[in-house]
């Protein structure tokens, strides 16, 4: 009896081991990194890029802007006489970590050369380590939280981190009202971008001797802000500094104004999309926001970008997020073309091509709609010009624009009239 039971256990253990071995082998077979690059390309010789952006969920407002930016970059790239054509595989990254992880895995297993995305920093902290482990270059178009490129050597971004640009809007608020002393801070505590950015805002305030009179924490899914707003207003703030995502931010500003707040509002990068206008409507008017893009930048590439944009959206300037998504595709496109011209992709496996592309990407200099950019060795973008914009809503309150009020590159921060 005892022997019989032992034999049964042994059989079960052997079966389990065989099963685990089979799964591991299948997993290896699913990884296309070892295949020749030629086998991973489309029949027409096109190389595949993947893009994971938020087309659903609460970050979809950014995703819409990003999809447009990538589409425009593809149109632009076709006019650049490419020596190696690229095709794009777009996947919805949802607005949460599991969706971004699933989309990354899917595209990597399909053999993409590099990835653009994901939309949110919170998603990047979950999904980027997968690309890093699999050796797939990632260019983040909109992740601004501290520590994104430090996830690993394959991770880079064209979106300047909050630490560089966020303090500019605080400077502008203080320039407008040097006597302001009472600052309320509101941020989403369960979001990596918001928590990282609010720290930067609070450090910028502390550097000017300002301590927040109240810090109100919300959650990503919150849309009713009656409680934190009334608690903040009891402290009679002269400035409210907000770090939340777009839909919630639009609602927060609207409710803040409806509840009677008339002081200055500084918002973070999460509200850097014109898609907030229909949500906060006329209440958006006057909010200050630091930006990494100016539609007024007079360079050939920015003018080309603007022309393409105006064809689909006449009359409205593109947003920062659209420009950054354009730039993310552009830097990958240019790096691939340089590599191809040098014959640097010949005879490589997909894995080797991915590594070569990453090295090429980091070593290049790019003239993008954001201005001239290049990367530090660890993948952080280096960008020279930043701006502060004020939202000015049209009389109907359904649309508006980001009007530039400050350019950080003009003599260390000149005011634009």
């Amino acid at each position, binding site marked *: 009896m005892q022997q019989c039971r032992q034999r049964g256990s042994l059989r079960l253990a052997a079966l389990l081991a065989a099963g685990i071995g089979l799964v591991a082998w299948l997993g290896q077979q699913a990884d296309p990194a070892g295949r020749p690059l030629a086998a991973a390309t489309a029949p027409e010789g096109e190389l595949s890029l993947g893009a994971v952006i938020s*087309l*659903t*969920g*609460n970050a*979809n*407002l950014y995703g*819409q802007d990003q999809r447009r930016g990538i589409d425009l970059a593809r149109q632009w790239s076709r006019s650049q006489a490419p020596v190696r054509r690229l095709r794009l595989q777009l996947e919805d990254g949802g607005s949460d970590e599991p969706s971004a992880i699933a989309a990354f895995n899917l595209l990597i297993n399909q053999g993409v050369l590099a990835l653009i995305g994901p939309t949110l920093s919170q998603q990047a902290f979950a999904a980027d380590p997968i690309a890093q482990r699999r050796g797939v270059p990632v260019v983040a178009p909109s992740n601004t939280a501290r520590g994104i490129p430090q996830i690993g050597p394959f991770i880079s971004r064209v979106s300047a981190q909050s630490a560089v640009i966020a303090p500019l809007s605080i400077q502008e608020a203080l320039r407008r009202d040097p006597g302001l002393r009472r600052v309320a801070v509101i941020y*989403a*505590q*369960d979001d990596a971008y918001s928590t990282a950015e609010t720290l930067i805002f609070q450090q910028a305030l502390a550097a000017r001797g300002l301590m927040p009179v*109240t*810090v*109100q*924490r*919300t*959650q990503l*899914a919150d*849309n*009713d802000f*009656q*409680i*934190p707003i*009334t*608690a*903040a*207003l*009891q402290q009679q703030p002269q400035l409210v500094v907000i770090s939340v995502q777009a*839909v*919630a931010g*639009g*609602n927060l500003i*609207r*409710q803040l*104004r*409806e*509840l*009677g707040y008339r002081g200055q509002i500084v918002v973070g990068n999460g509200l850097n999309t014109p*898609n907030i206008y*229909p*949500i*906060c*409507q*006329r209440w958006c008017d006057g909010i200050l926001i630091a930006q990494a893009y100016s539609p007024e930048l007079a360079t050939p590439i920015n003018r080309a970008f603007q022309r393409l944009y105006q064809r689909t959206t006449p009359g409205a300037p593109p947003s920062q997020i659209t420009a950054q998504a354009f730039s993310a595709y552009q830097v990958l496109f240019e790096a691939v073309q340089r590599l191809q011209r040098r014959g640097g992709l010949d005879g490589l496996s997909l894995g080797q091509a991915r590594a070569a592309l990453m090295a090429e990407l980091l070593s290049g200099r790019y003239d993008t709609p954001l201005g001239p950019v290049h990367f530090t060795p660890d993948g952080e973008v280096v960008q020279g010009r930043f701006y502060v914009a004020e939202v000015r809503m049209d009389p109907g*309150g359904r649309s508006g624009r980001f009007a530039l009020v400050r350019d950080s590159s003009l003599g260390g921060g000149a005011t634009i009239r």
Partner: protein
Amino acid sequence: MIAAILQTLLNAAASGGVYALVALGYTLVFSVLGVINFALGALFSLGGYLTYLLMGGLISANGGLPGRGLPVALPFLPALLVAAGLTGLASLAVERLAFTPLRRRQAEPLLYLITSLGAGLVLVNLLQMLMGAEGYAFPSQALAGLPAALLIAGARIRSVQVLLLLVCAAAVIGLSLWLERSLQGRALQAVAEDATTARLLGIDSEAMLRLAFLLSGALAGLGGGLIGVSISLPGPYVGIGYGLKGLAVLVLGGLGSVPGAIAGGLLLGLAEALVPAEASGWRDALAFAILFLVLLLRPTGLLGRRTPDKV
């Protein structure tokens, strides 16, 4: 000090009113059928979107029918009422699809949970296909003529939330009066008490069941429209969170108890409002911890009755 207390009470009432409305929707179905309709959160979303469309709102560029809308543009209150009625009809469809087949087979109550959850998910996904995933804001002139906010003894509340409170209160009082005083209301209560006896007394229990679903859906639709105008519609899943809170309120107040649903809603709202600013991000966790404590001390909920064992 008085202003701070009043502010807390206003905040509590503003959120608690909607929770009570949703919990009442659950209560109506639970009291008659003894099961929970998990599709109620999705019906809440549907009510919000229907109100938006009935007010002349258009489908966004990422929706299934971009730029299209309904050929009507009603003022807010009529749109809200029509949307509530239509959501009630959608609730009847849920009853027909997700509950009737199981009831005929006298299935386990657990199965209703799965089918109603499935119906809710299908409904939310249909909404996403039609309307897109982006947020929709009601036009700022939806409540034209009302001041943006009211200042009451130093406490602030947005006018839209006062309206929300008034409509919730009217719905709750109206429903309670209807249940207590009308023939149909009492028939519904009789079916809730004992369906077999009610049937022997000549009450059409099937009709009462359908009525419960109709009213339950209408209440959810009313909640969705009110929340939509108050905080916009952040996406098709907006109702799911309110549905969960309503469910908590249903348990907190006592399963099947109408006064319990109202008291539970207000208590949950108060628990949220009492969370200090430093812990405001943990509001949901603290509110649910209070719920947990109440249930430890009173397992039948605030106003629930212990059901005697049947021999």
